[in-house]
């Protein structure tokens, strides 16, 4: 290992510095006027993102207040039953999908580059695309309640209620709208993961990564594996609603419990996806106010990773009352208790840090402390409900309502508020008001406990959840009234926080730089910040560079580190290696564009038209979206640089173009395909689930899809895969004609393979509406064919790129990523064939 270079020993002359900053400012200039909305810069998009999530928090909060008014007294008629059911469905869904998860991604998108000393995350346009999808989907969903068309099946959407017993488009809005938003969430997760792995500053080895980054890395990785089961489940449920394929209908051999498994395979990790990034904020705040490095860094990382893994093994504790055997109850009770241990470790690390340091009183610490008080109680009731026999009583009562709000408000909302007060100066250079912050805290803290503490008792006295009213005299009346009063006090506190954030601050002077005397990289930012993120990208050799690296601010400011200039007027940042953050590439980043907005609008059209069963406009919208995305890729990605290398300062020369596993794009493809594969495996899980619960699955004799066509399909598709892999090699060796014919042959084989795959169930006349077996075969085959179709488009795209001279033997990002895509697709095809043609032989 080489010795890390230090900063320049002498500052560049002043006029050089001035010229450098001018060029940097020019390269990173934000668009103005109406073009402002074409911005893709992480700090701008991050801000929109955070603002929208707070808007949705407000919306969900108002719904909660309406519900509390309805429940203030027995037999109330303030809200109708139907409206109440819409309100609680939308409240839960909005808080989960439009506030809790997006705000983590929003905060990460906004601050990750600063924390990493990078200029920008590697895929700014992807972030912008994700934001627009989120905005569109969120407004569509929330708006539906004003037309009495909102989903009303609960945020958990259990069929058959949602498949056969609720007419109207509410359920479709939920299924399609949230699938759309989940795509945005996965896009952001890809961005965050690669940001954390590849855009760290030189020298920030894996043991020096700020804790916040560790946490969001774990949470984003969890999104990759948690969201796809829900997307797969939503696909099944929507197909059942629209085309009557009986996945969840016992009359057609289906089983409603499959949905519950897929939903909670998502739903339980989701809780930790919300919780971890919020604790991450605490992990930044606590050391700052203890004025010392965190105690137990390794423990915390271990605990966060441990929670990430454990959280995928707990989902069944949401299903304890569905009639499970005792062994499952015992195992999942124990697993659910086990997760308390890593959680406890983190809390004790924070306590140890406070004990070891001289703690400074501050508003962020006040919220952090409130969070601890609330969250620990919620965690302890969680330990209680995880014990199956207690769960039989508490499940689906207000006890659980109390528990989950203690966990989510204590474990997520309060840390986020702490984060608001802590990080706000980074947004516009000004602090929030200490006075308002304290008033708001005491209102919110008191109101919260007044509202939710009594609910434990309400639940234990027998009040079920999700009831629009209750009868008088059952012991619920007074408790509910108290809860309603508490809810309004909590709302008053939150209203003050909102006011504090949006109130005009023209007259308020800028905060001093690094106002809390923090040690982490993001506080190098000037007040107010500059669009370039970092004046020069530093060499890091400690966890708290502002505390531990002498003259750090001066060296950054005077451009004594890397990339202090933008000679070519282009936006650039440094990519480093995953483990030890060796500089690998100078990455050129794209600038403002409206393409992302158009891509999101057309993609949204696909889902929104689909909601109204307008299949043709929906399909057209999808095609338009595909065309726009291809245009976006064609004009904006894998651009061949004007020179091979660039001097980034301190005597370091970095290539401007890398392909394969060293490039960010390859990682993005890999990570995205992991998510796609997980969704596919969720569908396969469905197949085997039916096999375990249904004696007639697969039916005997098996009606299809036979063996001939699936086997032909497997052979053809393996051929298509081999051709693609060979084409990558031929391109590398610059055998143009072999590349073209190989890839063309590959795409023909792929099309033939897809057709053969469809031919199996087609010629054996499997009718997907008749029974769950043909439906499952068809869904696997359709999924795989769709993936093949995209693969064909990619193959043709690579041919076109080479013809147009946008891809060459050396500059071959496109074909390498497409070959990677085809590894996954070939695997998917083989599994599909093995399952649909092979498994019936064994079963």
């Amino acid at each position, binding site marked *: 290992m080489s010795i890390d270079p230090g900063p320049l020993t002498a500052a560049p002359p002043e006029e050089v510095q001035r010229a450098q900053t001018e060029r940097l400012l020019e390269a990173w200039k934000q668009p103005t006027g109406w073009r402002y909305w074409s911005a893709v810069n992480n700090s701008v998009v991050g801000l929109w993102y955070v603002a929208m999530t707070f808007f949705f928090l407000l919306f969900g909060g108002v719904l909660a207040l309406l519900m509390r008014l309805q429940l203030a007294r027995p037999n109330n008629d303030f809200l109708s039953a139907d409206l109440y059911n819409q309100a609680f469905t939308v409240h839960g869904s909005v808080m989960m999908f439009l506030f809790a998860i997006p705000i983590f991604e929003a905060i990460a998108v906004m601050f990750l580059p600063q924390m990493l000393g990078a200029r920008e995350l590697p895929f700014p346009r992807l972030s912008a695309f994700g934001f627009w999808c989120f905005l569109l989907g969120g407004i569509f969903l929330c708006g539906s309640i004003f037309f009495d068309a909102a989903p009303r099946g609960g945020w958990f959407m259990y069929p058959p209620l949602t498949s056969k*017993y609720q007419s109207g488009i509410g359920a479709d809005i939920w299924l399609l709208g949230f699938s759309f938003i989940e795509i945005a969430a996965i896009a952001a997760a890809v961005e965050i993961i690669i940001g954390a792995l590849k855009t760290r500053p030189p020298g920030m080895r894996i043991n020096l990564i700020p804790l916040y980054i560790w946490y969001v890395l774990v949470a984003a990785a969890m999104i990759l594996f948690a969201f796809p089961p829900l997307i797969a489940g939503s696909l099944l449920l929507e197909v059942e609603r629209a085309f009557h394929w009986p996945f969840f209908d016992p009359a057609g051999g*289906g089983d409603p419990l499959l949905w519950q498994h897929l939903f909670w395979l998502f739903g339980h990790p989701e809780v930790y996806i919300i919780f971890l990034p919020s604790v991450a904020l605490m992990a930044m705040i606590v050391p700052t106010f203890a004025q010392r490095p965190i105690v137990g860094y390794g423990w915390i990382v271990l605990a966060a990773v441990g929670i990430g893994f454990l959280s995928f093994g707990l989902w069944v504790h949401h299903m304890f009352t569905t009639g499970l055997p005792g062994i499952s109850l015992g195992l999942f009770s124990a697993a659910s208790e086990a997760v308390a241990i890593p959680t406890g470790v*983190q809390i004790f690390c924070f306590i140890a840090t406070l004990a070891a340091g001289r703690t400074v009183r501050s508003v962020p610490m006040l919220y952090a402390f409130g969070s601890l008080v609330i969250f620990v109680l919620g965690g302890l009731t969680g330990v209680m409900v995880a014990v199956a026999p207690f769960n039989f009583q508490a499940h689906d009562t207000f006890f659980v309502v109390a528990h989950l709000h203690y966990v989510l408000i204590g474990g997520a909302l309060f840390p986020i508020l702490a984060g608001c007060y802590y990080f706000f100066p980074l947004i516009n250079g000004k602090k929030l008001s200490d006075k308002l912050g304290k008033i708001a805290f005491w209102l919110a803290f008191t109101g919260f406990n007044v509202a939710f503490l009594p609910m434990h008792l309400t639940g234990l006295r027998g009040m079920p959840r999700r009831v629009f009213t209750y009868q008088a005299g059952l012991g619920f009346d007074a408790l509910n009234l108290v809860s309603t009063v508490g809810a309004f006090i909590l709302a008053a506190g939150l209203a003050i926080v909102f006011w504090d954030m949006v109130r005009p601050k023209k007259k308020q002077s800028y905060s001093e730089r690094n106002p809390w005397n923090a040690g982490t990289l993001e506080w190098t930012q000037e007040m107010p910040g500059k669009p370039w993120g970092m004046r020069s990208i530093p060499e890091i050799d400690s966890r708290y560079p502002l505390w531990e690296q002498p003259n750090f601010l001066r060296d950054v400011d005077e451009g004594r580190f890397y990339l202090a200039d933008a000679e070519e007027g282009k936006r650039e940042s440094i990519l480093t290696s995953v483990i030890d953050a060796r500089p690998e590439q100078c990455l050129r980043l794209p600038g403002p564009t409206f393409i992302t907005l158009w891509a999101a609008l057309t993609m949204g059209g696909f889902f929104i038209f689909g909601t109204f069963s307008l299949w043709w406009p929906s399909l057209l919208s999808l095609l338009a979206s595909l065309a726009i995305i291809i245009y976006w890729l064609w004009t904006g990605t894998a651009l061949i640089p004007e020179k091979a290398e660039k001097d980034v300062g301190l005597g370091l020369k970095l290539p401007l173009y890398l392909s394969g596993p060293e490039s960010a794009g390859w990682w993005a493809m890999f990570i995205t395909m992991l998510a796609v594969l997980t969704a596919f495996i969720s569908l396969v899980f469905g197949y085997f689930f039916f096999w375990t619960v249904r004696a007639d699955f697969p039916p005997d004799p098996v009606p299809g899809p036979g063996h001939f066509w699936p086997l032909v399909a497997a052979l053809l598709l393996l051929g298509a895969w081999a051709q693609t892999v060979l084409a990558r090699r031929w391109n590398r060796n610059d055998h143009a004609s072999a590349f073209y014919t190989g890839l063309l042959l590959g795409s023909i084989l792929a099309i033939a393979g897809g057709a053969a795959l469809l031919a199996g169930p087609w010629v054996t006349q499997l009718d997907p509406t008749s029974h769950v077996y043909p439906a499952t075969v068809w869904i696997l085959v359709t999924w795989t064919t769709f993936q093949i179709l995209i693969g064909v488009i990619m193959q043709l795209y690579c041919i076109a790129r080479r013809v147009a001279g946008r891809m060459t033997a050396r500059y071959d990002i496109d074909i390498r990523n497409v070959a990677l895509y085809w590894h996954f697709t070939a695997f998917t095809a083989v599994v599909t064939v093995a399952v649909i043609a092979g498994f019936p032989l064994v079963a």
Partner: protein
Amino acid sequence: MTGGAIVIWIAVIALAIHAFRARPGSHSGRHANYLILGGGAIVPTIVLTALLIYGLAPIPALLAPAPEGSLKIAVSGEQWWWRVRYETSDADAVVLANEIHLPVGEPVEFRLESPDVIHSFWIPALGGKVDMIPGRVNRLSLTPTKIGVFRGACAEYCGTSHALMSFYVRVEEKAAFDRWLMRQRATALPPSTPLAKRGQASFLANGCGACHAIRGTPADGVVGPDLTHVGSRLSIGAGILPNKPKAFVHWIARTDQAKPGVLMPAFGMLPKADIEALAVYLEGLR
């Protein structure tokens, strides 16, 4: 369990406050590691293991089937009421709705199912809840130990009027239970007063029998609740209205208001006198 949770909660908060106030240097690095390892890992592991042993021990007993020959009751959750069937040994099972009687001290096995959406059968005072899932049959065994009237409710969100899906359980002495079961098995009493007779005529003339059965009359519908002895029940409308003629009038005339989304159409268009006669007739079916 609650006591233990409160103690742990107070301990953690106290520790945090102490840490907040502590002066630096009073805790060495090794100290901190002991704290993290002890407080975060070792103590929770011991407490949780003990809790699991204590908490999971009752599971086998809770899940054990009722002994051979126990009373068997099939309960079907339907939007938004409960169909109850006593599976007695003789040919005629006793069918009723929204009410269950149990003999005290005797084990009973409930067979729980649903023809429409997922419901959850829950009598808080007698036992835990068990879901009723279309296409599946779940079982719940319990032995009531106390005489009294207990309320049960649907615990799984099941649509518009999920909140209005309750029932009553009366636990009584074996002798009283047997008498009750005998009465439930009998056919309905013929109406005795002119008003009740008019009510019965109206019931049959207006097609109520297409959905409701009153054994001993031509009404033999199976879609809705069996009304043979509806007047003997503790409530009407699945635990939401008192068993009084006035409540019957409200239910018949404004069904959609009493229970939003209900399948039964409101019969408010009938002459008022007819509705009142119906109410008297039904309330008299004891």
